[in-house]
Structure formats: structure tokens, C-alpha cells
């Protein structure tokens, strides 16, 4: 019985985004711009789910989610750029010609095909996360130390991606994409399709995360967050669990990046600077850490406010966003989800919000 209103909210959410918006678009009430805007927010929401998994549930502050996001994004971007280049009957992407590069660098080769690109944009972030995570967790780096080491990683990668030597377009990144699987990217139909795919992927990602955190695995993650040594004494291989969570989070980041690029039309190192990762943490924290819905809501809300206010209040939007953060903290102690709950309990709806706990410290 208790589950019902929460399910209702889920259904309403899906109904609104899967039916109302697209139909609105077809009727000409909703511009295709807003549609693809929401598509991009969904990508952020997917990445935020990853952060919630690793930070909210496992208590590991990872400051390189934006880097994983970009890895996924670059993989897809490379594919799109190769396709666009082929379409213009050129051998090499434009920026390579400028940089006096005569043959396609070896690591670009796999991205000619769509399927390899798709697989790689999940696999590359996951593999990188696996290697990095293995060393970090093995030497028992925790807490802020973990935050700093991942930040250092993100920062150094950012600096490397900025270089032309890496053959990934330097500061300008990858842009000027034309088609995806033969569909022209700027066509409204393609945009709507991408939007729907992203929405579906968000739902799938949410479902997976939901399963994960409600399985015993999820409980172990929460236990690690609250008292890691105890988990070890209880004979769980903490390293494996953390690593698994980290890799899943990275893969979610990659997935998000992969979906993001065709909708945005550009991917640059700017997406992975330190601030970008911190902002992702902020979405989750604002929405309600340790709660999957919170992560989604936080990501959607902040980006919505960001887009809206930079257009409508170009001079003052930072005040608005800043106040949003401060007020949320001061008045709704469980993030934005806390507010919804408060309203819910006021009007008598009982949501089955997952229990939120800040842990022992």
C-alpha cells in the first residue's frame, strides 16, 4: 500500500516526459530545442546516478565523474567526427590537417564503426576506472584523500586533453558532427529520437541502480560508507565492492557522455575541468544524497535553473543559483527531495523515500 504514491510519481514522471513532451512537440507546442535540452539534462541525470552510487551510497567522494563523462563523450564524438569527415569526403578531421597530421592516429581507428564506438564509450571509462580504482582502493585512500587524488587525476587529464599532442582536438575539442547512423543530427526527428533514447536509458539506468542499491550489494556499499573497517572484519572484500561501485559509476558516466555528445554537438575538455566534477557532486547533494530520485531531481533541477536563468537573468543568475543552494541547505535538510517529502507529508501523501543517513560522522 505504502508503495503506491511513490510508484505514481514515477509513472507521472515517465508519462510526462515520454508522452506529454513529445506529443507537445509534434503539436508544435513544445519547441524541439526544449526537447533536446531535456535530453541533455537526462544525460546529466544519468551521470548523477553514478555519483550517487559511488558517493551517496558508498561514501566515496569521486571528483572525476566529469572525466568519465568526457571519456564516453569523446568516444562517441570521435565516431561522429569520422562519419562527418567521411561525408565531406575528406581523409582526416579538419583539426588534424591543421596540425600536420597525415595519417589517422591508431586509437581513432576503432571508432569508424558505430557498434565499437558504442561499446568503447562504456568500456573505456570502466576500464580506466578499474585501473585507477584498483590502485586507489588497494592503498586504502579514503575520504578527502580520495577526493583529492581523483581531482588531481581529472585535472591532469584535463590538461592533457587540452594539448594538441593528444590528437583529440585540443581546447576546441570535437565538433561539427553531421550524422548518427545515417540520421542527420540537426533534423528535429533525430533530436526527438535521441531524446527518447536518452529518456529510456535514464529509466534503465535508474532501474539498474535501484536494483543495485536494494540488493545485498547495495547494503554492503552503505555499510562501507558508515563503517568500513567493520565490513572488512565481517569478511567482505571491501576492495572488490568499492571497485565494482566505482566502475559502475564510471560506466554510467560514460553512457551519459555518449548520449550527450550527439545532442550537444560538441565535446571539449571544458566539460571535464575540476569545476565540472564538483558541480556534478552539487547536483546530487542538492537533490538529496543517498537517494536515487534525489540525484535525478538534483541534476534536472540545477541544469534547468542554469539554462533558464542564464537566458532570463543573464546578470543575476549566479545569485539565484547560489541562493538556491543555500536555502536548500538551511531549510530542507534532505536536499530537494526533503522538500518534496515535507510537502508530501503536509498534504498527506506518504512517499516511500529511501532512508537517508549521513552515517556515523
Amino acid at each position: 500500500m505504502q508503495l503506491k504514491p511513490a510508484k505514481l510519481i514515477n509513472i507521472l514522471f515517465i508519462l510526462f516526459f515520454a508522452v506529454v513532451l513529445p506529443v507537445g512537440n509534434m503539436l508544435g507546442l513544445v519547441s524541439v530545442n526544449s526537447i533536446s535540452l531535456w535530453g541533455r539534462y537526462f544525460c546529466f541525470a544519468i551521470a548523477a546516478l553514478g555519483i550517487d552510487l559511488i558517493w551517496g551510497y558508498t561514501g566515496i567522494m569521486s571528483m572525476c565523474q566529469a572525466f568519465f563523462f568526457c571519456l564516453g563523450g569523446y568516444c562517441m564524438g570521435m565516431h561522429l567526427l569520422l562519419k562527418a569527415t567521411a561525408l565531406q569526403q575528406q581523409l582526416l578531421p579538419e583539426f588534424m590537417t591543421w596540425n600536420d597530421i597525415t595519417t589517422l592516429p591508431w586509437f581513432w581507428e576503432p571508432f569508424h564503426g558505430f557498434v565499437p564506438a558504442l561499446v568503447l564509450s562504456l568500456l573505456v571509462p570502466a576500464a580506466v576506472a578499474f585501473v585507477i580504482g584498483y590502485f586507489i582502493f588497494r592503498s586504502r585512500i579514503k575520504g578527502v584523500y580520495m577526493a583529492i587524488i581523483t581531482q588531481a587525476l581529472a585535472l591532469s587529464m584535463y590538461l592533457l586533453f587540452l594539448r594538441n599532442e593528444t590528437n583529440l582536438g585540443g581546447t576546441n575539442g570535437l565538433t561539427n558532427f553531421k550524422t548518427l547512423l545515417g540520421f542527420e543530427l540537426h533534423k528535429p526527428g533525430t533530436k526527438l529520437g535521441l531524446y527518447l533514447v536518452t529518456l529510456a536509458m535514464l529509466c534503465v539506468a535508474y532501474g539498474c541502480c535501484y536494483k543495485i542499491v536494494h540488493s545485498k550489494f547495495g547494503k554492503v556499499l552503505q555499510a562501507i560508507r558508515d563503517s568500513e573497517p567493520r565490513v572488512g572484519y565481517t569478511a567482505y572484500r571491501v576492495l572488490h565492492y568499492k571497485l565494482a561501485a566505482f566502475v559502475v559509476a564510471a560506466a554510467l558516466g560514460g553512457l551519459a557522455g555518449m548520449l550527450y555528445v550527439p545532442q550537444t554537438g560538441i565535446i571539449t575538455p571544458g566539460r571535464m575541468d575540476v569545476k565540472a566534477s564538483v558541480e556534478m557532486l552539487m547536483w546530487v547533494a542538492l537533490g538529496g544524497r543517498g537517494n536515487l530520485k534525489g540525484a535525478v531531481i538534483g541534476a534536472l533541477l540545477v541544469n534547468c535553473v542554469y539554462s533558464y536563468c542564464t537566458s532570463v537573468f543573464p546578470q543575476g543568475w549566479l545569485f539565484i543559483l547560489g541562493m538556491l543552494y543555500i536555502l536548500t541547505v538551511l531549510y530542507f535538510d534532505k536536499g530537494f527531495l526533503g522538500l518534496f517529502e515535507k510537502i508530501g507529508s503536509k498534504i498527506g501523501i506518504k512517499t516511500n523515500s529511501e532512508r537517508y543517513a549521513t552515517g556515523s560522522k
Partner: protein
Amino acid sequence: MELLLKINGIKSGKWTGPKWLWPVILAGAVLFFAVRVATDSSGTYVQNLFSGISLGSILILVSLGLAIVYGLAGIINMAHGEFLMIGAYTTYSVQVFFTNVLHVQSSNWFFITALPVSFIVAGLAGLLLERLIIRHLYAKPLESLLATWGVSLILIQTARSLFGDLTAVKLPEMLAGGWRVNENLVLPYNRLFIIALTIVVIIALYRTLTATRLGMQIRAVTQNRSMSACLGINTKRIDAMTFFIGSGLAGLAGCAMTLIGNVVPDMGQTYIVDAFLTVVIGGVGKLLGTITAGLGIGIFSKVLEAFFEAVYGKVLILLLIMLFMQFKPRGIFPDKGRTAAD
């Protein structure tokens, strides 16, 4: 990699090799450097060393306030950089006041005045932040992260709309130019001044924290707020003091920063990443660690930069830091024994 670690006597992040190895390596490095410096006629090494110390002292100066607020009060203050910015703008305002209102010609006086003023102004701003927001959040470090992030956005935009985007402070006459050691080697006064200022601040802070009652109260409150209260410590007052000192130090750093850089609304963001790096590498809550880390990063960066391009120097230092954390996962000076247990 596995093999490499074994050879070095390092396993699962713990040093199991001979204990004397690190000091010997360190002493060797120092000796090597000392010999190069002594036999160095072109001044390159002294120059690099000086640059390193100078950069290190800047890092330390910027990080000390953070070390207090974060390391001692446990608050991840995302707005720390903005207090630096407040300090810098205070210095700028003092300069404007001196030239436009008091019509003082010499550019020395405004800077001398600005040092304490920027400390106090930034400190008061920090106090205000603590009273209005942080005070509610001591039990919730996560929320403080969010709130201070919001504050930082607001402060940046406020500065932007008050001061515009580009301002800089005049270099005081007494700090212009440099000390000409020999024809190849000039040590700029502004950098010498920052090094001196850093030393003074370190000593003052160290004494305050270790040798005074206030210092003990601060440390006690940080580690166990409610028990400290039960022992009769006015925790509110101590929290406020801690924040005042921490933010004030950031302000002071901002004032010093005007000697070498410009004053822009988001100048804090430039320094905050490095500052966090320094504080954490040193080991949270360890003043000595912050100092060592600051100097270490400073000197290493400059040595690397002499051989590689600045960009790769920066990448290398970051990679080095990551490698270092493999062996010292809790900073240079970790807590030992039971106090370390989480």
C-alpha cells in the same frame, strides 16, 4: 608495477622496507642540490630554488586559512577562495581610498594599511558566514559543502557587479624591483616579502594553536564539539574565532597575492584547487604537513618546469602527487595508532 612495488619494499600501500631509506634519499637530494647551488655560477639553480620556495610560500599562505577551517573545523569551505578574493578587493579599495580620498602619493602606505585591513575584513566576512549559515551545519559536513558553494557563487557575482572585471593593485614602491645578487640573479622584493610574510604567519599561527588556551580550545572543539561544550568551552565563540582566523588568513593571502597577480572576481578559483591539494597532501589538520606539502609542491613544480614545458610540469606534479598518495594515503604526516582509526 607489482614487481616494482615489491622491489621498493612497498606492499599494499605500506612501507615495509628499511626505515633509513627515505631519510637517506632526502639527505642525498639535499646534498646534491646544495653542491649544485654552491658550484652554480649562472644562478640557475638558486633561481629555481628561489622560485620553488616562492611558489611554495604562496601555496602555504593560501592554504593556511583553509587548513584551519577545513583541517580544524572540518568544514569544506568551497568559498575559501572567495575570501582570498575579498582580501584582494579590500586591498584594492584601500588603494583607491588612499589615492583618491587621502591623496597619498607614496604607494607604500596603502599596502601597509591593507595588510591588517584585509585580514579583518575577510575575517569579518567569514564570521558573518559562520553566524548566518555554517553554524547550523556543524553536524552536517555535506550540507556545508553545498551552502559554501552557493556562497561562493554569490560572492563572485557580487564582486563582479561591484568592481567590474579587471582591476589590479599598484605594486608598492618599496617592493618594486629586486635584490640583485649577481647579474644573472635577481630576487624580486615582492616575492621576498611574501616569503617573509609567510614565515611570520606560520610562526604566529603555530604559537596560537599550540601554546595558547585558544589553540587548545580550537583543537578540542574540532575533534569533539559536544564533549568540549560539556567541559565548559563556549563552542559558539570558538567556532566563530576559528572561522574568523581562517577567513582572515585567506584575506591576508589575497592581499599578498595582489603583489604578483591581478584582482578578478574569480581569482579564488585559481588558487582553491592547489590549496586543497596542499592541505590534503600534508594530512588534514596538520599544520606542519601543510607547510611541508606547500614547499614540496612549490619546489618540485619549479624543478620540473625547468625541464619540461609548464603544462607538462603541472601534469607531472599531479601524477607525482597521485603516486605519492599510493604510499602515503593519509598525507605526509598521518595520525598513527588508534587516533587514526575511523
